[in-house]
């Protein structure tokens, strides 16, 4: 049972141990190469072929889009599995019963999802770079890197919320498989969502990466036409939605722990 007086060292140690285990399981089970590495590289090369010759910043578009899909894919599948694995292995209840709040265990797994997604983005960058023969034109490289890290943070918040939500549903696999392209479309991974019918835009705005990615494109692609409100409101929207996601996820995780004590049926698969 998690208690309020759990020392911080225990929490950070749980997160580190969880992160380490996630790395080891990633290496032991190569299926995770698909969403984080293989699929994005294929999408990146396809995007490169489609964008070829479409202006000086087409390379940035292709790399950003495929890299983003890599991180999205890893977040979507990895976070779904973050709790699913405990449920399937029968370790969910013992882990939740341990003194450290469960959210810190999940945090370690989500961190690895972000890192492996970033690795996928790096591989996409190298593959597209090799196809193009020259690096993409980025006006503000330092700002680009900082904002890219921020995009990862927004994705991590989505990962934590999804992890929490998947506890209450057996449909995570369905949502991941059927909704994969829907997430890519709805959050504007490869193109701005302002191109989509207007009624779809508010749905996309529920996701922090939509805001952050729009800001990243404003920064790195001169002449980019995204949301009419521009760069800084994008940043503000991303920060606010990320905080909301983290707050909701924290609430859900607390509820999960109470639910375990009350019902004792959390590990039913």
């Amino acid at each position, binding site marked *: 049972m998690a208690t309020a007086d759990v020392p911080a060292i225990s929490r950070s140690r749980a997160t580190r141990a969880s992160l380490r285990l996630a790395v080891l399981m990633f290496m032991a089970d190569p299926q995770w190469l698909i969403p984080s590495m293989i699929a994005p590289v294929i*999408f990146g090369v396809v995007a490169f072929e489609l964008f070829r010759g479409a202006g000086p910043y087409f390379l940035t578009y292709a790399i950003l889009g495929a890299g983003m899909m890599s991180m999205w894919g890893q977040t979507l599948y990895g976070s779904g599995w973050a709790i699913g694995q405990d449920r399937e292995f029968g370790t969910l209840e013992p882990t939740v019963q341990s003194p450290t709040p469960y959210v810190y265990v999940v945090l370690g797994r989500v961190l690895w999802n972000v890192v492996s997604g970033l690795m996928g983005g790096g591989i996409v960058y190298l593959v597209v770079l090799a196809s193009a023969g020259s690096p993409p034109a980025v006006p503000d490289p330092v700002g680009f890197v900082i904002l890219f890290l921020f995009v990862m943070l927004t994705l991590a918040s989505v990962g934590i919320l999804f992890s929490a939500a998947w506890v209450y549903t057996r449909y995570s696999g369905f949502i991941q498989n059927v909704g994969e392209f829907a997430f890519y479309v709805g959050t504007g991974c490869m193109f701005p969502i302002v191109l*989509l019918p207007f009624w779809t835009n508010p749905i996309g705005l529920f996701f922090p990466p939509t805001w952050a990615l729009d800001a990243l494109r404003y920064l790195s692609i001169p002449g980019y036409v995204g949301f009419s409100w521009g760069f800084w409101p994008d940043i503000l929207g991303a920060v606010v939605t990320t905080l909301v996601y983290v707050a909701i996820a924290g609430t859900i995780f607390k509820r999960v722990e109470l639910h375990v004590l009350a019902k004792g049926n959390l590990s039913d698969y």
Partner: protein
Amino acid sequence: MATVNASAGAPLAPATRTSFWRTFWTNAVIAPRTTLGFMRIDFVLGTIFIIPLMQMVFFVFVVQVSGGGASAIAFTALGNAVSTVTYSSIFSVCQTTDSEKQQGTMEHLLVSPANRLALYFGRGLLPILISLATVSVGILYAVLLFGVQIPVATVPSLAVSVTLTAFAMVGFGLLLGGVALYLRTSIILGNIFLFIGLLLSGVNFPASQLPTVLQWIGYGFPLTWGLSAIRASVAGDSLGAVALLWGAVVVAAVVSFGLAIGLWEYFERRALATGSIARF
């Protein structure tokens, strides 16, 4: 293969095979809803109606952003409408081997006297039907939403192309399922072929844009030939030209089914010899 009285030292006699049609029916209708697990109504409806739409929207908008015109959009829309067949034909079928291993039913299946041909064709039946529905709905989306023109006169030829493609793709899925018998998991295999068609089979851009080596690899996939046949049908090419492509699709289907059965028999013998291959 299963025998009787082996432990008693009596002469080996071939076990009685259950009827072909009973095995076929069990694997076609009952197994997908139970052990194989892919016949769930939410997954089926999602595969038929949602995945094609989302995949087409995604790539069509990418083409639009890159400055592609109406013809490029139509090309991409039709390509993705057809390529979504891989979800039901390759991924679902390929994963049946995993499902058997995971649920511990593979050992029982391997020592059962079930007719293997009936088993394989039975498992392919529902995926073929779902594949037909997926491609049909995808093509409908392409016409209604993305401006793909399909003259009425070409519909019979298109129907033949779609049907042959569905058969060939399910055969390819069974082939990968046979390979998966030897692997720890088939998920990687299924996923690789799920995505690689987008690149090598002329789905989003003509395969001729690729380096020659990649083009030749692409020719090894039934999707490449099936998609070519469907594009030729839609374009109203002569029956002779389309028939050549149909021949290629049929060859791809026959080779896939043949290799699938051959692989299954080979790995089945290995499984019985080593006793470990059916583990997850």
